[in-house]
């Protein structure tokens, strides 16, 4: 379980490290050539979404935001805690860099930031679209985790039972197509975590030393809000349709609050998305579903 979450952690870490170099850069430059640097970065990595304002993002997210994650905090906790550990570590790194920035001449920080940004850009793995349409090693594993088979003829019953389970878990059903056995549901919940607030305070206290070099203390952005989403598909897997397969996929979108680094404020609404690949979450869902349809499911 830990291992699986790690891939998500790395992904979010990578993304945020990129944001870090951006922010540091912005801070070093003093915000004057903000537009130039922004367009420069964009031209170098046209696909990055990090750090863009929520308003700019909203259209794109809407396409995916219909899905939302669980109020099963108890399930999600283990998953989220791992992230949190990593995140606070790298936030500390960010504050450390920020305080160095306060002590060195601005031009040297700017130069350093450029070098760092270049290095980081080289390091961020860019997936080629052609790889995305190929089955990967973990595709099979994910499929096994997300799929259960039920011995029933009644597909409509299975679908409505699935809808009921999703409702029990606090989801709102957003779309349903009976003919192809498709359901889409979402829910919005708070994404506040104590760990993040504590590290925010800790970094604020640690960085108060910056006022001696006429820099305001650093306030890091914490996760505020999340949307957890599920798509569910049922389909018969043999010719006379006596066996039905149910496949469910969960993912979430997280919105961050505001903060500031140096003289530059970080606008609220920066967002991050991730697939939820915690097996426990899927096991819980299927346990509830099998109770609802009085059937014993079996894995593929």
């Amino acid at each position, binding site marked *: 379980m830990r291992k699986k979450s790690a*891939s998500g952690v*790395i*992904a*979010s870490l*990578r*993304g945020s490290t990129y944001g870090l170099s951006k922010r540091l850069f912005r801070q070093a430059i003093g915000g004057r050539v903000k537009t130039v640097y922004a367009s420069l970065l964009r031209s170098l990595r*046209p*696909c*990055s*979404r*990090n750090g863009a304002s929520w308003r700019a993002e909203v259209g*794109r997210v809407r*396409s*995916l935001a*219909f*899905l939302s994650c669980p109020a099963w905090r108890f399930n999600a906790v283990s998953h989220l805690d791992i992230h949190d550990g990593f995140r606070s570590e790298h936030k500390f790194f960010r504050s450390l860099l920020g305080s160095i920035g306060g002590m060195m001449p601005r031009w040297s920080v700017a130069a350093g930031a450029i070098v760092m940004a270049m290095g980081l850009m080289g390091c*961020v*793995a*860019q*997936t080629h*679209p*052609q790889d*995305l*349409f*190929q*089955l*990967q090693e973990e*595709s099979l594993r*994910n*499929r096994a985790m*997300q799929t259960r088979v039920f011995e029933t003829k009644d597909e409509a019953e299975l679908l409505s039972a699935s809808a009921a389970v999703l409702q029990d878990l606090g989801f709102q059903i957003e*779309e349903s*197509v009976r*003919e*192809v*056995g*498709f359901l*889409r549901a979402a829910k919005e919940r708070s994404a506040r975590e104590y760990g993040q607030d504590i590290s925010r305070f800790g970094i604020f206290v640690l960085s108060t030393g910056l006022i001696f070099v006429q820099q305001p203390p650093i306030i890091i952005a914490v996760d505020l809000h999340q949307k957890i*989403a599920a*798509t569910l*598909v049922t*389909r018969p*897997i*043999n*010719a006379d349709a006596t066996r039905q397969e149910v*496949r469910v*996929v969960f*993912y979430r979108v997280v919105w961050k609050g505001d903060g500031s680094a140096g003289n530059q404020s970080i606008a609220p609404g920066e967002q*991050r*998305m*991730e*697939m939820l690949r915690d097996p426990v979450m899927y096991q819980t869902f299927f346990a509830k579903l099998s109770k609802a349809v009085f059937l014993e499911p079996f894995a593929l």
Partner: protein
Amino acid sequence: MRHRVVETLIAWVVVAITFGCTPPQPTPDLLAPTDAQMKIRSIQTHSFDVKDRQTAMRGVIAALQDLGFIIERANESLGLITAARFAEPNFYDIVGISVTIRSETDGRTTIRANAIYNNKPIEDPKVYQNFFATLERSLFVVKQ
């Protein structure tokens, strides 16, 4: 001397006006299909030996889910499926795909897929080859 300056000015103004006033004339074949369009369409289209459109739709959904896509929308009567996924490992880029499924009279089904990578259409034939290969496998499993 003064005359010269005025003349030059007038000449420039005339040039500017002429350029500003002539809109580019649309050619008659503006909306005519180009070779590139036809090529992309043939890359994006594939015909399968499946009679039932619903079976084909379920096969497409299963293939997309196997590829890690999130199904956004499915419309049975139009035979339309929209899906998206993050370009993992980075979660800031999005790959979107819309698939249309149409039954042909000869008992075959034509499937057309359009994929975009962050708002830019994907025109690489290899991408579509990979997609149809996965789809073929998925449809084959359904038939059994």
